[in-house]
């Protein structure tokens, strides 16, 4: 279901920073991080920040992701005001966590590493949770966990299917055991979602490690990864340091995970809305009950490809 030209993302060139995607040498061309080829910047944007030459999927911010996946203007954000309260009064080597949160909030444009809310995907309603990697590597702290639990609980209340789109560098040290316990909290919330026959679809994007993969992201009903996304428990450097093992080519890529049975499919970014909406249509049978042609039809009329 290629659908590259349906919507035009509206990001500025300035989004393209050295760490988050291709470098922009001038106003018209961007340099692909992977193949180093120059790509015409308008093409790059129309292709959802995927290199048309080597298929490299550049990292997205939470808001870019939301724009790409959800129907335009359909996103309603929840719990934006929830922020960490620094339970350990943590500082490391003079770096004060509380200050770090303030500065990272400014830089990331988000007050936490998770953005939650509800929206529509090709007409199908869903609750969504999207990580913001620029906020402390999308590490899972107390506020992240609280927002996650709330969006899942609200999905149950509003009978919405739930979609998480994640990347993460791992655990948030600065909240130590509080951070660890968010793994229990987020999966506990999901166990309630499942009892109500509401599906959880998890989308793994580059890179996705540690506390996020070892909790909510890997116990979804359907797990989708972007091509080439690195996904694992421990990072490759940690593994090499500790075990002195030589890691094989392609280790921890989405393709490696598919081969090892850990994910259901790899979906190119441009195909993600189509795949998600098709799945939402199928699962609607479970949480809306069978013989609800109205719901199915509403989806059908909007994307015309479901049945």
């Amino acid at each position, binding site marked *: 279901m290629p659908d590259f030209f349906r919507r035009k993302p509206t990001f500025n060139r300035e989004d393209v920073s050295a760490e988050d995607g291709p470098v922009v040498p001038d106003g018209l061309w961007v340099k692909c991080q992977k193949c180093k080829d120059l790509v015409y910047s308008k093409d790059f944007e129309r292709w959802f920040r995927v290199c048309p030459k080597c298929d490299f999927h550049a990292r997205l911010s939470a808001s870019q992701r939301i724009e790409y996946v959800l129907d335009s203007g359909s996103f309603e954000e929840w719990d934006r005001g929830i922020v*960490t309260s620094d339970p350990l009064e943590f500082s490391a080597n003079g770096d004060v966590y509380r200050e770090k949160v303030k500065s990272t909030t400014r830089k990331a444009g988000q007050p936490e590493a998770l953005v939650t809310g509800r929206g529509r995907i090709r007409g199908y309603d869903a609750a969504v949770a999207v990580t913001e990697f620029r906020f402390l590597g999308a590490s899972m702290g107390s506020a992240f966990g609280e927002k996650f639990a709330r969006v899942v609980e609200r999905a149950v209340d509003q009978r919405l299917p739930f979609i998480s789109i994640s990347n993460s560098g*791992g655990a948030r040290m600065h909240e130590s055991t509080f951070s660890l316990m968010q793994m229990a909290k987020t999966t506990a919330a999901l166990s309630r979602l499942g009892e109500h026959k509401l599906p959880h679809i998890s989308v793994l994007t580059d890179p996705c490690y540690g506390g996020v993969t070892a909790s909510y992201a*890997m116990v979804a009903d359907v797990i989708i990864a972007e091509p080439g996304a690195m996904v694992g428990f421990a990072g490759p450097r940690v593994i090499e340091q500790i075990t002195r093992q030589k890691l*094989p080519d392609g280790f921890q890529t989405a393709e490696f995970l598919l081969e090892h049975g850990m994910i259901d499919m790899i979906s190119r970014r441009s195909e993600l809305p189509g795949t998600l909406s098709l799945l939402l249509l199928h699962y609607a049978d479970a949480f809306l009950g069978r013989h609800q042609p109205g719901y199915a039809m509403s989806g059908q009329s909007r994307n015309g490809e479901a049945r």
Partner: protein
Amino acid sequence: MSTTTPAWERVQLARKADRPHSLDYVNALINGFVELHGDRRHSDDPAMIAGIGAFNGRTVMAIGHQKGSNTRENLDRNFGMPNPDGYRKALRIFRHAEKFGFPLICFIDTPAADPGLGSEERGQATAIAENLLALASLRVPSVGVVIGEGGSGGALAISVTDRLLMLENAVYAVASPEACAAILWKDSNAAPQAAEALKLTAQDLKRFGIIDEIVPEPEPAHDASDATIQRTGEAIERHLGEIEAIADRPAGIDRLLELRYEKYRGIGAWVDEQEELIGELPVGVPGTSTPESTSD
């Protein structure tokens, strides 16, 4: 930089090789213990032990990370670091306990989940996550005890229980002090400082409401193994008795699951700022990532 801190001393105590380990507790506290092996999928992981037996007159199932008491044993037991097969053995035992209605007792004592190539290939993250999900809704009473080192997700995967106890000299944190120091101090010699910053002692975690009780060690466990194990057994019995009393009422298991949900749902420290304080930040503003985080 000081070479030690109070928290770092606890870490040293928690790691002592002659501290009693899971099998010591199980053999002393659980009568007629029969060890059960294997994940029915791939292997039997010696870093995770499991079995069935009688605890104070009722049948229970027990699970624990298993460290060795010397280097040879530790090589056999992978230093108490389970691979996915170990977590799947635990999952099998969770389901087994649920099938028969046996309470579950978990002994937590691991530096971390195994970080090897094979563990990644067989889905270490998946295995841990599935255990968290299973424990959250397991329809039997459960008690966990951190008896030594509670390291990260590898510890959490068998510790999401109705009651979580901790020995006085045990520690529990999101990462090892060494790993934390390497990442945030850029210097693994700062482990003593990291240990302090991570607030990983039983006293800290009791204060935070993350654990339910501290089992005292008037003498450190490695000097008073029998007394420590006995005291731990008494604490388990007290908590198990309380939650069994809830579970035994009509619809008691549903109530227990509600309480368990509220327990973990409630852990966290956050504030709900007024919208105006946070500000409605523009979407898509430029920024650089600061991945100050570990991958475990």
